[in-house]
Every structure is written in structure tokens, then in C-alpha cells.
């Protein structure tokens, strides 16, 4: 799909909220490239701009300056209809909570982006996802009949069903117990390893970040360090040092 091997990138990304005295700079010149078939974790203290970065990359929010690309598509500059189509066709989402349509069954939820797009689902791929996530016998259930972990797995399946260029996950394990969280993370890992899926995950859990190929650390709207092949301990140390350097300012 992309010759460079870059699934999404941001160049000189600035995001400011409000104006005048109340102005908040959420992103202050971020350059980041997300390689295809790589699992990237975004970490940083609360308020450092993790969610904002993800929202800007995913075309959910406008940027103040800079450019965002998904594959070869220039996201900045697209209008609502273009953004909607982009999200529908190229991007998958997993949110922390409130992920599913309560009126639809698990299967309908998984296939919803494809239904919206009017695309025919790839049933072999669907089966693969469903079996990997162990959702086979839950397909006809409504979200209210599923546990939190199952709901989040359905959300993961939905994010992957259309084979999007990038999957964005904002604290997907934030609301789950550790066992359910681990299941979701193992699945995301497998999607990258076995199916060359590109995933970006915002988290503040060092354990969750250790599933990623690479961790990007944000502070005050800037990327201040990266960690390849992270372990939980390494991530922990890095976060510690971020906090101390914060105190020094």
C-alpha cells in the first residue's frame, strides 16, 4: 500500500485550544511517523497531549498548524465528508468505553463500519478475527449481555474488520480488569504479528505499553523520547525520569 512503509505521519503538528490568556497548547510541534505493521504505544503524564495527538492523527480533530497524513492521504485540509470517508475506510477505533451500539448484536457491531461503507465483508477475515478473539458463541448477543472484556474484544474486532490502514486505541484497557486487559492486548499484538496491522495505542499503563514494538513519550505536547522493544520495567523507568525532569522545570 505505502512504499515508504509509513502508515501515518505528522509533521510539525501544533494544536492549541482556546485563545488569549486561556489558550492551551496541547501539541507543540510534533513530528512522528508510524511504521506499517508496527504496534506503537503513546505514553506520557496526564495532560501531555496523548489523546489530542491521536485525535489529530485520526482526523477527529482539526490541527492548528502542521500536516497529518494517513498513508498517502493528506488528512489536514479534508472537509467533514472526506474525513468521514477516511475514518470509515482507513481507520479503526477502540475507545476506552462506550464503544458499541446497544441496539446491535455483537456481529452487527463488528460489521458496522463495513455496513456503513456499503462494503462486502471478507468473511474469511471476519472468521479469523472472531475465532482469535473467542467471540464465536457471543455473536448474536447484545452488548448489554456481554462482559466488559467481551465488549472491548468486540470493539477490537470491529476496528480490524475492515482491515484499516491504522487502528487507534485510546486507553483500550483502561476500564478492564488485568486478565481481560491482557486478552485484548495479546490480540492487538497478534494482529500486528500475524496480519501486519498497524496499531497506535494511548496508555498510561507500563504493562500495556510493553506489548508494543515502540513507545513514544510525550510531555507538554512534545515528543521527548522513544523506546524500542520496551519492557515494562524500562517503560517504568522512563516515566519516572519524565516526572523528575518535570519537577525540575
Amino acid at each position, binding site marked *: 500500500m505505502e512504499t515508504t512503509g509509513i502508515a501515518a505521519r505528522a509533521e510539525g503538528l501544533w494544536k492549541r485550544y482556546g485563545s488569549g490568556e486561556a489558550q492551551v497548547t496541547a501539541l507543540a510541534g510534533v513530528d512522528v511517523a508510524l511504521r506499517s505493521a508496527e504496534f506503537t504505544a503513546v505514553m506520557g503524564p496526564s495532560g501531555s497531549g496523548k489523546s489530542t495527538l491521536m*485525535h489529530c492523527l*485520526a482526523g*477527529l*480533530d482539526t490541527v492548528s498548524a502542521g500536516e497529518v497524513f494517513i498513508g498517502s492521504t493528506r488528512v489536514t485540509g479534508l472537509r*467533514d*465528508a472526506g474525513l*468521514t*470517508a477516511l*475514518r*470509515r*475506510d482507513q481507520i*479503526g*477505533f477502540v*475507545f476506552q468505553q*462506550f*464503544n*458499541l*451500539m*446497544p*441496539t*446491535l448484536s455483537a456481529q452487527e457491531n463488528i460489521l*458496522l*463500519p463495513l*455496513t*456503513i*461503507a*456499503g462494503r462486502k465483508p471478507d468473511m474469511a477475515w471476519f472468521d479469523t478475527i472472531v475465532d482469535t478473539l473467542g467471540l464465536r458463541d457471543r455473536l448474536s448477543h447484545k452488548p*448489554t449481555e456481554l462482559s466488559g472484556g467481551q465488549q472491548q474484544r468486540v470493539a477490537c474486532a*470491529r476496528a480490524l474488520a475492515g482491515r484499516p490502514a491504522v487502528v487507534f486505541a485510546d486507553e483500550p484497557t483502561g476500564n478492564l480488569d488485568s486478565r481481560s486487559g491482557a486478552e485484548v492486548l495479546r490480540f492487538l499484538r497478534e494482529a500486528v504479528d500475524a496480519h501486519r496491522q498497524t496499531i497506535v495505542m494511548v496508555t498510561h499503563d507500563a504493562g500495556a505499553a510493553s506489548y508494543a514494538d515502540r513507545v513514544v513519550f510525550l510531555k507538554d505536547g512534545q515528543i521527548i523520547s522513544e523506546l524500542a522493544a520496551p519492557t515494562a520495567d524500562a517503560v517504568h523507568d522512563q516515566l519516572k525520569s519524565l516526572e523528575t525532569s518535570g519537577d525540575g522545570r
Partner: protein
Amino acid sequence: MLRASLRGLLDRKLRLTLAVIAIVLGVGFFSGALVLSDSLGARFKAMFASVSTNVAVQVTARTDPAQPSQKPPSMTQAELDRVAAVDGVGAVSPDVTSAFVVPYDTQTGKPLPGGGPPQLGIGIGAEGDPMGVLSLAEGRWPTGAGEVALSRHTAAQAHAAVGRQVKVFLPRLQRPQMFTVVGVAAYAGGRDSLGGETVVLLPMAQAQEAFYGRTGLYDGVSLTADAGVSDEALRDRVSAVLPATFEAKTGKQSSADQAAAVSDSISGLTKWVLTPFAGVALLVGIFLIFNTFNVLVTQRARELAMMRALGASRGQVTWSVLVEALIVGVVGGTLGLGLGALIGGGGSWVLGNLGDAKLPGSGITVGLDTVVYSYAIGILVTVVAALLPALRASRVPPLAAMREIAVTDRPLRLRAAVGVVVGLGAAALIVLGLRAQDDGLSMVAAGCGVAFLAAIVLGPLVTRPVGRAVGLLVGWGVAGSLGVRNAIRNPRRTAVTASALMIGVMLVTAASVVATSFKESVVRALDTTLRAELTAAIGFQQPDGRIGISSAAVARIRQLPEVQEVVAMHLAVAPRLNGETAASIGVGAIDNVPGAQRTMGMKRVSGEVRALNAGELVADENTAKARNWKLGDTVRIALPGAERPYRLVGTVEASPLWANFLVVPMPAVADFAGPLIPQAMIDVRDGADVAATQAKVEEILVDFPSVTVEDKSSTTRQVTQVVDIAVLIITVLLSLAMVIALLGILNTLLLSIIERTRELGMLRAIGLGRGAVVRMIGTEAVLMSAFGGLLGVGVGLGIGVALAKALVYQDAITGVWVPWWQLVAAVVVAAVAGVFAAIVPAVRAARLNVLRAIAYE
């Protein structure tokens, strides 16, 4: 944070605004009716007061309130002289008055149209009006035979002036006479008329001859008092010398009584028309408010739970919701009162200036009772509607503050059981009512009311299946199917919302089924049983013999070579039967009973049906049966002139043309309010030209005020028009209820959108376009409105058919006809109207900021 809470407040305000609107419309309609009659009443009071400014005491015949159409007694010259001789009496103004004295337009030669303000003839002395109500503007007072004076308004209407000839219809003479206008009179204060009435002033003696057939008779008398004598004192002195059939009142009392009588009859009308619709509007409003508060409570569950966790009692929580309802009720009552003042004031202005009815004064009269009622209704309706939601609020467990407590739907089983029981009760009442045949109508009507309750109880149960079925029609694509699912995911809410719409559609459907059946029955009856090609009849005026055709004119029509047969019917209204008022029964004398049998479908069932002798009676079979009269029984019938016994000699078949009708012999006409014939059927000889005959008949009847000659098709058209107009009025008034119901849909959608903000954000995030969001909400709206429309048509059809069937058993109609296309149209209109209700919510949903929606708390 502040912005969020401000927005929340605004949102909540909007939600409550819609609830308030329902109250405003309902209370507005209701108080409008009261304000209208009060305002008109005040203006009538002003009018009557201006007539009796100088009157100290007024003497009038006592009227029997139970029998308003009773012919009033007259006062003799001797009785009048006795009154005039009472110590303290100043000026004496004898009252010689007749209604239906109709002047003719000198330009067109046609009688001035009646049916509005009275057309009066008044006797006046040579010195004019001693009370000074009327004074000469031009010329002189009439003194000799063949002379009249006209009020200025009358002169203008008739295009007459002093010195000109004017034709005047005199009901007792049953024909018009030519008079010379010798004067034009105006009211005190320079008014042309008091309330649009026409007045022809005849010399006293001529007036008595013309109105009563001889001189020396009076309707009553107005008196002034000598200096130093109070009105009350004079009244008491005069009372002492009056015959028992007369009473004396002070001028003030008399004008107040007259005004009250007129405004009572008007307010009776406005109340009967406006109040039912106010009731419907409020009933619909209850549903809307109930839904609003229910959703409000659901959305505030956490807040309420926190209050409970902090130690608030259940009662306090209930009360906090009820206070909000109270505020809505007070605001709605206030605005509704304002709307009512506008409606009433506007109505008073329109009615007071309608045609020539120029009532004095203007302005809006809002009585204290109106204010009290408005607030009472506004508050009561709101609080009653909010009661269940408020109780539900008190049941939110404190635990809900700590964690999400899934609100599980209570199972619908209990509801199903209750609904089925109520539904069976309704069915039983209707079936038994129909079995009972004659007396079943009220039972059937009660059954219909219960059926309506059953429909409301069962609504949520059929929401899902009906919603899915309608969804197959309207739920296109992803957006559509999401909309369908949203509509049926909360069956209670959807059903309550749809029920509000159901009420209006149901009533319109039932009304149009009954009306169509009535229309078809009458049209068919006219078609098949009425052989008379022409009908000469008065328009929409009281058919009591004081206006209509003379017997002489009927005789001339009979002599036309083209005419085969004429059946003339003298009529009297609201008789008393065996001492009881029977407002729905008509009494008539038919001058040609065999003719009625030949040309009007009058069919003998029992006894003898023929030209009746004095003291004989024929009734339609239903009336006889309902009142348990046997042949040979004696029935006392009180007519305006006298109460007499009549012996039942025969019964006729009940049909739309012969329903609730008693035939009395021709001599009884002397007891009617007047001798004129309101209705004559004319059978044209076979082969004769109907149109030419009609022209000849019209020629004969040209001088009779308010009489028109119609052929069969225009008679039919008149009937159908009346029914169509009635249905139209009902539909227009009920569309108010439907507008409120649509507001309810709008409300429910807005509330649902707020509830589903995050869901909407998620859908937008994963690629649902703005257009699709609009379609989704639109589908939900259409589904709800179509559901309401279907329910309404379904229940209304059942109710309408049941009522029509009951009427068939009463022979008021002959069959049941269903206006299918109208019903289909009703559902389609309801569904389409749903689209309008969806506009605001859909736009709001489409504009939703995706990020904020996802992060929405």
C-alpha cells in the same frame, strides 16, 4: 465546566419548553372559551344597559325556564292602565314588539337576510319613545296606517329614506305589506343600531293589529319613576298590581338579566365547542409531560442517587421533581391564560363585529374564575403527568451514584395482562351495547372509552412488531435500520410518544367514520325514499313557524300544473313530553299525510297512519319504543301555545328521514310558535321540467324571507356539506392536538439524542456521515409518527364502526361506511409530519462535535 452546566441548563430548559407549550395550548383553548364568553357578555351588558338607562322598572312576562319557547302571555289594556296608575310612575312606555318583521331591500326587492341579529317590529306612540332610547334623526314618528319609521341601520340596509316606499314582511299576516317611510330614528348616543338588529317602527295600534291581531294587547311595559321614588320602591308597588303571569324588575336588573341570558347561550356554545378540544390538547399534553419528566429522571439518575446518598429522603427526591412540574404548570398556566385572553379577545372582536352585529365596547374581560381555572388546570395536569416519574425518581437507589446501574426494563407481562383484561372489558361493553340495540349507545360509547385505555396500555407491547413492520417500509439502508432499532429499543417511551399522536388521529378517524356513515345513509335515503324533486325550506334558523312559507303560498304551489303533490310540514322544537323536556325530539304537523307516505318514505309500522284528527298522534317506532308508548296511550305534549293530551294512533318506520319525530294534527299548529311552514316537499309530475317548475315555485316564494327552493341534488349537497364542514372543523381543531403530539416526538427525539450523545459520537467516529445521521433520526421520527397514526386509525376505526353500528340499531343511520382513503391519508400525513418533527433534532445530532460527544459526561 461552567459551560457544560450552562449548556445542560439550556438543554433542560428546551425540554421543559416543549412540555410548557402543551400546557399553554390546552389552557389557552380552555381559558379562551371563558374569556370569549365573558368579553362578549360584557359587551352585551353594555348594549342592554344603554337601552335601559332611563328605565326605572321593566314589566315583562314571566318565562318558564324549563320551556324557553313558550309563547309569552300578553298584557291587556286594563292591566296596563292599572300599572300606569300606580303612585310614583312617571313616563309609561308600553312594549309592543315582534321578531321576524323583515324589511325588504328597496333596490333588489329581496328580504334582508335573517339568521343573525334579530329583525324587530316595534309599536311606537305618536310622541315617540318616552324612555329616550330611540330619537328621531329625520322626518317624524309614524301615526297613520301604512306609515313606518326605520332605525338608521335598517334604512341603510334596505336602501330606504324618508318619503320612500318600503316592503315589510309581517309574520302574523304571513305576507309582506308596503309602507311609507316617514321617519328615521337613531339610538341615544347616535348609534345606528345596538347590535346589528333591524327595527321597523309602526304606530302603536297598527303594530298591535299586525303582531297580535287586535289592539289593546302589550308584551309588557317600561316605566320611569317620579322624583324621589327609588327604582326598588316603584318595582315593589308595581308588582303588587301585576297579574301573576307578569313580573317587575328594576331597569338595572332587567338589562343584566337580558345580557346574562344572551351571553349564557353564547358561552354555552363556545364552551361546548372549545372545551372538548382543550381537553384533548391537555390529554395529549399529559403524555408529552409524562415522557419529558420520565426521561429527565432517567438522565438525572446519578444526581438523584447522589442526593439520596447524601441523606435526602425519598419524599424529598419526589418533591424535587414535583416542584419542577409545579413550575412548568405555573408557567404554562400563565402563558396559557395569555393565549386564552388573545383567543377570547380576538373571538369577541370577530363575533362582535360579524356582519352587522356592531356590539358596543371592546376589550378583553378576564374573570377571576378564568384565572383560577387556568392555573388549576395547568398545575394539575402537569403535576399529575409528573407524578409517576417523580415516584420513579424516589426509587433510584443511592448506589446508582457510585456505579453505573443498568436500568433493566421491567417485563411487559403485567402490562400485557392488564391490557388484555381492559381490552376484553371494552369488547364486552361494546358487544353488549350493540346487543342491547336501543339503549346501547351509551354502553357502546363507554366501551369505546375503555378501548382507548386498552390501546394505551397495550401500546408498548405492539411497538416492536409494528415498528419492525413499518421499518420494512421506511428503514432504508444502515441509517434507516439504525433508526428503526433506536425507535423500538425503548418501547415504553416510543409508545407513550406515539399515543399522544394516536389520540388525535383516533378521534378524527372515529368522527369521520360516523360522519361518513351518516352522510351516506342520508344521501341514500334521500336518493331512494324521497320522491319529491324540490324542497322549499328556510336556511339554518330555528324551524318553529315564526319564519317560513304561508299556507296560502303552499296552496298556490299545489295549483301549479307541473306539481303532482306538496307536503308541507309545520314544525316545533324542544317540546315537553309528559312533563319532561325532550330537546332531541321534533314535533311536526303535516298537511298531507298520504302525500308524505307516497313521497317521503313515511311507512306505517302499526296502528293508523293518515290525516290526523285533533288530539291524535303518530310517532316513529323508536321514539315510541324508547318511551314505552303503546297504541292508545295518551302523551301530554307541551308546545309553545299550550300543553294538551294526544292519543298515539300509529307508528312509522324509523329512518334517517323519520327519526325522533312526532306527528301531530293540523289544529295543533295553533299552539306552535308561529303559523309559517319551515319546510315543504314538492313532487314534480313525471315528464315535467323540474328546473322550470323550480323557477315557478321560486316566483311564488320570492317574498318569503329566508326561504330557498332546492332541487334534490342541492338538498343532498347541503346535507353532505354540513357533514363535511363538521368533519373539517373537528379535524382542524384536532390538528392542534396533533401539533402538540408532534412536539412530543420532537421532544422525545431531542431527549434521546442527549441520552445517546456518546453513541452518536462513536458512530460518527467510525464513519457514519452527517447525512446518514439525519436519515437515522428521520427514520426514528417517521416510525414513531407512523406508529401513532396506525394505532390511531386502528383504534379510531374500531370505535367509529362500533358507534356507527349502535346508531344503525337506532335507525339514525342505515349502514356503516368507512372512508378508507381518508384513513390511509391520515396515516401518511402522520408519517410525513414526523419528518418535520425530526428536523430540529436531526440537525442538532448532525452538528454534534464528534470529539466532545465521545468525551461527553
